[in-house]
Each structure stands twice: as C-alpha cells, then as structure tokens.
C-alpha cells in the first residue's frame, strides 16, 4: 500500500470551525461534511484506496472556487480537486485533512462557435457532453477516453487523457486552446484563449496533465472538429504477437495512419468474446482492430491497402466490416474489455505503461512469464499505434496477499516499460498509484526540478500534495 502524508493535527482539530467557514463562503447545499454524504468522495477509479476527507465543497462558479481556495490557502488547509472521480491512478483520492473541491456543479456550456471551431465549457462538463452539444452540426470533441460518458473535461485536462482515436487526433493537450484557472493562492487567471499558440511561456501545455497540483481549472476552451464522412473498422487475427507487431509496423511504414489501431492478446480476446459475442477468433494469439475514415470509396481503398499488407503476415482471419453495424460489432468487444475482464475476475488493476512499439513481442513475453511467477492472470489491450499498453491484472481484493501480489506485479511491468525505453504512464497519470515508482524513470535531481515547478505555483504545497512525487519535504 502507498502511504499518505500524515494529516496536520491542528487542521483536524479545527474541523468544526473550518466547516463553518466554508458554509459562510458557499450556499449550504454546496458544503458536505456528514460522514455518510462524504462517502462517495472517499475513493475514485482506483478503488483499492480509500480516505475520507475533512469536507467536500461543490462550488458552482469560478468566484466560489476562488473564495474557497483563498480561505484554504490563508489557513494552510490542503485541497484535492475532483471531477467525476474516474481516475485509475488515485488522482482524486482525498486526504484526511483536505477539503475536496468537486467541480461537478460547474457543468454549463458557455459558448459554441462552429465558425471558429471552438467551445468554451465549464470544468464539470463531461467529455461526451461536449460532443453531444456539437454533433448536430457534424462536429465532435476528439479525445475520447473509454470513460467519456462520466469523466469531465477538467479531469481530462489534468490527466491529459487520451482515447482510442488519439493516434490521428491527438490527446487532450493537442485539442485545447485556453483555460480559466484558480491558482493555489486563489487568484483567477486565464491562460491561452480562443486562439492558437499564445506567445509567452506555454502555461496551457504545462498545466495540461499536471494532475490537479498547479491550480483548479474552472473553464476550458476546446477545439471542436468536423467529423469525417464516415468510418469503418476491420479485424485482423494472427498466429503470434510478433507477427501482429510486424503487421502494425508494415501498415505505418506504408504511410497509412489509421484513426485507431488496437491490439488484444489471447486472454483478452477470450474474455471479450465471452462477454460481447463479437465473433472474435478464439484460435488467434493476437488480434488487431483497425479503423479508417473517409467516404465509402476512400474507406474501401484504405481497407484494401491494409488488407493487402496484413495478408503478407499469414493471418488467421481478416474481416472487413461492410456496414456501420458490422464496425460496431467489431468494436463492441474492445470497448467492453474492462467490463469483460471484470466478469472473469472479481477485481483487476489496469496498468498503463507505454513502450516503443517494436518492443511489444518482448514485453508481452515477459509479462506472460511474470503472470506465471505471480500466479495471477493478465489480459493485455494495447493502443498499438502509439505504444500505450494496458495490462489488466486480475486479483481478489478480499485477499490482501492477492492485492499485494497484483501491485508488485504491476510495478514490475512498469519498470519493464521504462527499461525498454518507455514510460510509467501513457494516459492514466501518476496519481498515488505510480507515485513511488517515479524514481524508476527520473533521476533525483530531475524530480527536484519538477518539484521546484510545483513549488513555483503552490509555494505551500496545499494542492494535491500527495500525488505524483514521492513523499519528501517540499523543496
């Protein structure tokens, strides 16, 4: 288990007074302090970790957020920003002496401009909510994490979330124009704007993926894009992971960047097939889902090219969807992968390392060996185009030994990712989960440098102080 910093006793002792002060700053229904009602905020998508906060506030405006932050800053009270709480790395995990600042009531869409291709939304608008608001004009917001129904844009910004289509459209960072931010000292500032490449330091870029440590995002200006004429998927199944990896290389080497290029290994194919009955080939060692976009004729031409390339790698099967329905069927298993694994195992840890794509066969072989050694099953889904690997480690949370083994196994996989030239996290963030592994990827002075930047924004280390960096005295 990963340790949380000790609570400040004086803050705990002042709880009644602090709640009263928050009630004076916000409407009564925006301050939650009863144990039962705080329960939903004690954990996030990393459910193995739980911690009740001091109190929860649910502001409705940027000014309210700023008022709370100014009060907390003046009184040395820690704060934990929270969106939908879907973080898989414990990013939204509270502290006993911290006020959780939930953004979910800030869910208004403030502006949509199709001519300038942008939308201004509050931080609590869901990812899918943006697309829903613009799709009647054929537009969409590109980054599409699997959690898009629930997760909020403020959370996406702070995790720099990706999705299945980011090979072509990029991750959150590549689709933002501006932010409204409450600084850790309670000032309201705007960075970027409704235009590209604001001159000066790239605060927008630095804040994206900063995991709620540098400020509280209250408004986001995103780029919206016109969707393609259509999209279609194909499925290619191979006899070995090396062979599937070589096929991926050949597709990209030919100059084609599909919108999505997803890889599943044998255990994952089996789990998904049992769940979704998508018609996945059960005799395959590896399977690719490849999606292309354009008019029907363009899709045909691209899929023909890809089919031709895959045919060179002795495939077990190649199935090209002939309709939107068939595409959906191909995607159904992949989109339900987490749920499918959830059916065969009471609990699982979803890992999130990235590797150079050429290392995939070696890494999968090593993960297989570790799986045997730990006696825990693992299924692998992989964003094959960009090297982001999601091993799902199955364990039983009722058995502390099983959980401990799963965590150790996961850490070993992430070390391997770094060893082969990759990184600890491709899209889920460091949070608390990978915090203590940071020294695997970074030298001490490199972490000190990053901490110094956190200190520049948050001199008192009040905002999410227990995330991302191994616990030491603030610099």
């Amino acid at each position, binding site marked *: 288990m990963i340790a949380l910093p000790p609570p400040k006793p004086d803050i705990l002792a002042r709880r009644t007074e602090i709640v009263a002060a928050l009630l004076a700053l916000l409407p009564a229904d925006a301050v939650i302090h009863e144990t039962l009602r705080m329960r939903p905020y004690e954990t996030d998508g990393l459910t193995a970790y739980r911690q009740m906060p001091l109190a929860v506030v649910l502001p409705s405006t940027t000014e309210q957020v700023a008022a709370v932050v100014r009060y907390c800053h003046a009184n040395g009270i820690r704060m934990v920003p929270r969106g939908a709480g879907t973080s898989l790395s414990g990013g939204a995990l509270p502290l006993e002496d911290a006020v959780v600042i939930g953004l979910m009531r800030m869910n208004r869409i403030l502006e949509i401009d199709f001519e300038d291709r942008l939308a201004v939304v509050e931080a609590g608008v869901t990812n899918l909510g943006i697309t829903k608001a613009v799709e009647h004009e054929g537009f969409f917001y590109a980054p599409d994490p699997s959690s898009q129904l629930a997760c909020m844009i403020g959370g996406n910004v702070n995790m720099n979330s990706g999705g299945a289509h980011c090979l072509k459209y990029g991750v959150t960072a590549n689709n933002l124009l501006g932010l409204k931010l409450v600084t850790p000292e309670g000032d309201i500032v705007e960075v970027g704007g409704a235009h590209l490449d604001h001159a000066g330091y*790239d605060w927008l870029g630095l804040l994206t993926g900063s995991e709620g440590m540098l400020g509280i995002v209250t408004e986001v200006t995103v780029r919206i894009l016109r969707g393609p004429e259509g999209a279609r998927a194909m499925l290619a199944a191979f006899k070995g992971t090396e062979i599937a990896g070589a096929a991926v290389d050949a597709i990209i080497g030919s100059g084609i960047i599909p919108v999505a290029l997803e890889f599943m290994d044998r255990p994952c194919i089996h789990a998904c097939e049992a769940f979704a009955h998508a018609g996945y080939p059960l005799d395959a060692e590896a399977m690719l889902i490849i999606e292309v976009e354009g008019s029907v004729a363009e899709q045909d031409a691209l899929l023909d090219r890809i089919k031709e390339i895959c045919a060179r790698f002795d495939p077990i099967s190649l199935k090209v969807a002939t309709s939107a329905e068939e595409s959906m069927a191909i995607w159904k298993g992949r989109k339900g992968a987490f749920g499918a694994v959830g059916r065969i195992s009471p609990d699982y840890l979803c890992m999130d390392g990235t590797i150079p794509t050429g290392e995939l066969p070696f890494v999968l072989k090593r993960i297989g060996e570790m799986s045997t050694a730990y006696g825990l099953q693992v299924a692998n889904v992989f964003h094959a185009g960009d090297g982001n690997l999601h091993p799902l480690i199955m364990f039983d949370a009722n058995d502390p030994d099983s959980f401990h083994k799963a965590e150790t196994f996961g850490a070993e996989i992430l070390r391997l990712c770094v060893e082969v030239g990759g990184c600890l996290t491709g899209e889920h963030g460091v949070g608390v989960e990978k915090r203590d592994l940071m020294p695997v*990827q970074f030298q001490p002075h490199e972490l000190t440098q990053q901490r110094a930047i956190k200190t520049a924004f948050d001199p008192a280390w009040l905002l999410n102080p227990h995330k991302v960096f191994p616990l030491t005295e603030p610099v």
Partner: protein
Amino acid sequence: MTDLIAPADEAGVVEAIRAAVAMREPLAIEGHGSKRALLRPVQAARTLTTRGLSGITLYKPTELVLSARAGTPLPEIEAALAEHGQMLAPEPPDTRSLFGAPDPATIGGIVATNLSGPRRITVGAIRDHLLGIRFVNGVGEMVRSGGRVLKNVTGLDLCKLLAGSHGTLGVLTEVTLKVLPAARASATLAIAVPGVAAGVRALSAGLASPYGVTGAALAPAASGATAWLRLEDFPDSVAYRAGRLRADLAARGDVTLLEGAESEALWRGLRDAAPLAAAPEDAIWRISVRPSAAPGVVAALADALGGRVLLDWGGGLVWLAGPATAAAHVAVMQAAAASRGSFTLFRAPAPLRAAVPVLPEEPAALAAIGARVKAALDPHQIFNPGRMRAAA
C-alpha cells in the same frame, strides 16, 4: 560580436553553464548564431551556441519517432525523413529569406521558438509533436522530460514549457519529435473572394468540411482576396475531395485548382511568409486571434498603417508587415488586445525591439508565477536575459 562558446557535446554545455554560474555571467543562447535579431536584444557578453551538437541520434520510421541533437540543421532532418516518405508535420517556416540569414535553423532553435507553419491548423504546433527533451538548466544539471514514446503523461510536462521559451529556461541539447508520413499527393483550391471577411468565411467553411483540409490561408489580391485551401493524402482521395470541396465552395467565388509542384510551391511561400519579405525596412508581426476576429484586425491595422497582410491558420494567424515605429506597434498591441488575441513582434530594428513589449504582458498573478518558474529553472538569471521581456 560577443565571445562565442561552442561546446562539442552535452558535457561541454554543462561545463560552460557551470562556469557561467560560477562567474554569475549571463549567456546568450543560440543555435546557428545568425538570428540574434529575434525578440528583444539579449544583454550578455558571451554567447553559447549549440552548433557543435549535431546529428540525428535515433530514427525509427515505423515508430514515428526521431531524435536529434539540438544543433542539427533542419534541412538534414528533413532529408533523412524524406528518404522514408515522412515529414515534420507542423512544417516550420524557413525564415532565411525573411531575415536575410545565411544559415538554416537548427532543430533546437525551432523547438525553442515553437514556430509552426500552415499545417499547424490541423496537426498541431511543434510543441504538439515534441515527445522528449534533454536540456541543461541554469545550475548546470542535465534534465530529461518526456521520452521517445508517443504517449507519455509521467510527471510535469517540461517539454511544453521549454518549447517556445526562447532559450530563457534551459539549453536544449537533444529533442525527440513525433514524425508523420508525408502525403503522397496535394492539391489546392484557390478561391477568388470579394474581401478578407468573405475569405475567412470561405476558409472556415473549408475547415468545417469533412475533407481534412491541411492548410487554409488568405491574401488580399488586386481586387478582393484569394483564399487557399489545401488537401493532402493519397492521390485518389485528394482528387475526390478536391471535387467535393470545389462544388461546396463554388458559390463563394471562382475556384481554380492547383496541383502537384504548383500547389507545393505556393504553400512553401505561405509557410515562409515570402510575400512579406520584400521591404526589408518594414517590421513584421505575427498576431494570433480567433479567425472571426481577423477581418477586424486587418481592417484596423492594414488600412491604418498601410501595412501588408497575409493570413494563415484559417484566418487565426495574421502576418503583418508595416512601418517599424512605436506607434505601429501600439496599434498592433491594441488590435490584439481588442480581439483577446496574442501578438509577437517578429522582425524589427533593435531599438524598437528593446523599447516595446514584444509579447503580450501577463496579468500580475501569472507574471508572479512566471518569475518563480524562471527562478526554478534558472535561479541565477544566466539564460538570455531580456529576450522575452524587459528585466523587472
């Protein structure tokens, strides 16, 4: 001419910076040394150049990744990529003609200025393609951020912070970039529109089409203006989309189709702002606004200053050439502020650059954070003093 320090490798950069720290002596940071005219004049007696750090260190075409030492000339990188049919997608401008500079840009300079060309509107800026950096900070430590994989959210993203920081936060020694397949074919629709406002609307219509436009630029013409929309992909796709787009835009003005070399030459010129290069005594600004605000900016500036303009990024980037005077600069600052946009004084004689803010001022709370971030990376103020803003 200041003293030039030209280390041959990263260790040499570390050593030079440690020496500068020990003597508390600021350094000007340069790639190819020919572009000291950038932003505000730097006040430093000695210059550190990265020209000795040259060469591609990693290139994996099927993994879409390339690493190079900071002093590698851009043409060397472009040639290596071309051999595998790939490109630096944001197509950074070649500013040699604009600045009358003999040497090509270095990749470190391109990253440090985050300078992107026409394709920026669809594929993102240089910073969006920056996967990893190695840099030496202001106490002489070699620091890495990012890496060599396409997706990475491990820790704070110092890549984006260093990109566009004009050498004021650290000296880049090596950069890793995402590269992409170059399109097999390109074509351009040139639309004769009645004026700038109608032209920006035509560009917006093109960018709001499902045809994947990868360039959207505009220039005033003898009568009215010309709007250009570029398509790039496999030849069959380009032909199909050009036909559809042409039909969709027909009502907006006469449409001409430019193909192959003709289309490519046009975009090279637009990328390098070649049409503005002619009068060397003029100042040049880049103004970034939301596209619908561009016609107002052009009306306010081009007409008042008698300046010449070129619009890129669907109208979102206004290149302006006009008199190199403080009054003209104030007009630019006001126009950018009125449209809630951003500006850069891109080319001007040194006295003007030293006298005015060359970038937008930041609100006090952000400026205070900025000063602390600068101190976190360069506590002794060694790097490029005065480059981005006048010393406080």
